[in-house]
């Protein structure tokens, strides 16, 4: 009875992130990007702590893994600052869908640095993304 567990979690992920995009708009309309990111960092702390406790307070000592992890946070944060700036200037329904194009760059970077090939579905995705970018850059 009911949904597969992985699907339930995936749907909860969609709800959490989808609501995040909206709540960030409510914040960005009244708060400048800098202070908003300070507050968002505070909001991230409880789950980072839970993760840390579940790891029994032992993090892997893989230097490269750590570097990637921290860079991941710095770049995510920079992306968030730009998202707040964008969403405070436009409709969240439009800005939110444009920022969801980020896999375009991941695919391009993976092609360049990891030599991953694009499959046919991804090629269609690239084409649709470029149409969206063309429309919104007018």
């Amino acid at each position, binding site marked *: 009875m009911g949904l597969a567990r992985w699907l339930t979690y995936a749907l909860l992920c969609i709800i959490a992130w989808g609501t995040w995009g909206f709540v960030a708009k409510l914040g960005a309309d009244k708060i400048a990007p800098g202070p908003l990111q300070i507050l968002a960092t505070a909001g991230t*702390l409880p789950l980072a702590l839970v993760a840390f406790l579940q790891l029994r307070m032992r993090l892997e000592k893989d230097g490269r893994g750590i570097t*990637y992890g921290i860079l991941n946070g710095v770049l995510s944060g920079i992306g968030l600052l730009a998202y707040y700036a964008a969403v405070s200037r436009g409709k969240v329904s439009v800005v939110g869908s444009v920022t969801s194009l980020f896999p375009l760059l991941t695919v391009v970077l993976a092609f360049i640095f990891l030599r991953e090939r694009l499959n046919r579905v991804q090629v269609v995705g690239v084409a649709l993304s470029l149409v969206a970018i063309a429309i919104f850059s007018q």
Partner: protein
Amino acid sequence: MKTAGTNSWFWYALVTVVAWGAVGLLQKLGTNRISSRSVLVWLFVGFAVLVPFLPFAQLWGLSPYLLFIGVLSGFLNALGSWFLFLSMESGAKASVAVPLTGLFPLITVLLGVSILRERPTALEWIGVCCALLGGILLSRESEAVGGS
């Protein structure tokens, strides 16, 4: 090319696309080496690295409601990542779960249109549909090649 004006948001949104696109690559590289929970801990550390460069003084004077909204946004963002980890741990294939969770902007669009009463123009709707579908298709990796 018009730059300033009504869609000045677009250039900021592109910065987000570039930064998060690079994050996607780092995640591919990072999760092969460290667990998803460690990634969340280091993500927080990365956020914390930025904090000293941000204007603390502007926090004074914000209403309790706005402080709550700001903290809630960070919490929801991390919570979404947490659910994605749990989904993967419960046996989801990355080639299915990642494009599926890429549907999240659909919820954002619905909330913007229903609660904020945003009314995108016809052309904007076409762009929204292309962007949503494009983002999902792009994350659909072949199982033999991608995923983790």
